[in-house]
């Protein structure tokens, strides 16, 4: 998988999902490998450019991007600017060289562990590559009962208890921002006097809230149900001239 990523990055294609990377350092490492030099000789400033480039391109395609990656981009920008500046007087802060060194160390260390994890996992693994066997047939066997419940079982069990007790505790029904039919009925009854003429349904309902489609849908549907209810009881008249046309509403004086 990594090889595929490598080539795609080299060709300047950025149609990769960040999901393929295990965090910003991992992404940096993949980018660094494309520089084809020993990690200790890597140009951090070039790497910073690559990374920032990558993130920018990525953002053009996918709007959402994990904060971790953005923080790293910001930090690299900062590091680059520090590297470009003339050597500063010694302050409490880390020098640009130290920061650069820290980044190199982190990259090399992660690479080392990534390699190691592959080596470890390629060792002969019980139940995958090698197997226990044998049979005790023919020997006298005495059995000891050994309870195999382990710490994992214990913690899982306790977590289950915590979860169920949490669920009970949190059984408070939160206030709903959705607009209920009851609310709509009450409100419509209150404004009957204003709708003595045929009025567009949409002008009767409360103002829709910008950028919240879910609440808006609830306002429209609850008011619609409410007006059906009120017309059934004879308080108002409803009309719609054609399918999907505007709905008009009028107070029924005789109701």
């Amino acid at each position, binding site marked *: 998988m990594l090889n595929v990523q490598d080539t795609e990055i080299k060709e300047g294609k950025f149609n990769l999902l960040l999901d393929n990377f295990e965090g910003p350092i991992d992404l940096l490492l993949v980018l660094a490998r494309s520089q084809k030099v020993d990690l200790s000789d890597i140009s951090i400033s070039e790497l910073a450019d690559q990374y920032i480039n990558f993130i920018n391109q990525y953002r053009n395609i996918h709007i959402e991007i994990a904060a971790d990656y953005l923080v790293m981009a910001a930090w690299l920008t900062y590091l680059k600017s520090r590297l470009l500046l003339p050597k500063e007087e010694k302050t409490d802060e880390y020098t640009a060289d130290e920061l650069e060194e820290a980044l190199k160390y982190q990259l090399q260390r992660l690479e080392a562990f990534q390699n190691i994890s592959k080596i470890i996992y390629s060792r002969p693994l019980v139940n995958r590559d090698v197997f226990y066997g044998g049979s*005790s047939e023919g020997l006298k066997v005495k059995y000891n009962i050994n309870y195999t419940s382990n710490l994992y079982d214990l913690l899982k069990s306790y977590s289950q208890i915590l979860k169920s007790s949490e669920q009970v505790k949190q059984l408070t029904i939160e206030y709903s921002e959705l607009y209920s039919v009851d609310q709509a009925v009450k409100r419509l009854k209150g404004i009957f006097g204003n709708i003595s003429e045929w009025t567009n349904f949409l002008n009767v309902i409360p103002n829709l809230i910008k950028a919240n489609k879910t609440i808006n849908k609830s306002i429209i549907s609850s008011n619609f149900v409410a007006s059906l209810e009120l017309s059934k009881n004879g308080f108002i008249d409803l009309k719609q001239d054609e399918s999907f046309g505007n709905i008009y509403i009028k107070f029924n004086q005789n109701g």
Partner: protein
Amino acid sequence: MKVLVIFILNLIKMDNKDIKILEAILFASGEPLDENDLKEKIKEKNNISNLLQEIKDFYKNRGINLIKTGNKWSFRTAEDLSDELTIFKTQKRKLSRAALETLSIIAYQQPITRSEIENIRGVQMGRGSLDHLMEIGWIRPSGRKSIPGKPTLWSTTDLFVEHFGLNSLSDLPSKEELKASGFLDKRAAIATISDLAKNDENFQSNDNFEQDDENNIDDFIQNT
């Protein structure tokens, strides 16, 4: 003479992959296997009888012998050992869910009384639960609570700490750590009303989140 030596040396060196495969399969399966089934696993299928005979000879005087019963082959321990050899095997058993719950509550909240445990679990405890845990040696009575009735307080034992691979009781992960390690994950969370009412942007990013989780699980199952 020379021929015999070479023959014997070959036997010991044993370059024959088919023989190795047969040995390993017979060993790992743990039960008698049909000669025809064994044949499927090797290259020189027509040679199977000779190969099995060769293995049988090889183990003749060892602690393990290859035995043929009917048309099935199996390794078993040498017969002349059966009289004098008793081996102890451990029979593995898991604790019941109730016992495990009780144990985990005691572990985290000790010392604790029986009725406090029942309160947390929300059920009356069967008579044997505490006895059973005490029999295994994982809990012990540790004094009495100074409330009316003076009920027995229960605590875990050193054996408990040892069995569950802890250095000490304080090693038990806290609630926050359980959460961080994934134990408290609610896999199929039901969206609450307020979730639904949240604006669409949020809603979408929630969706993404769930998907990530699924990818993650897939990673575990898939052959990566």
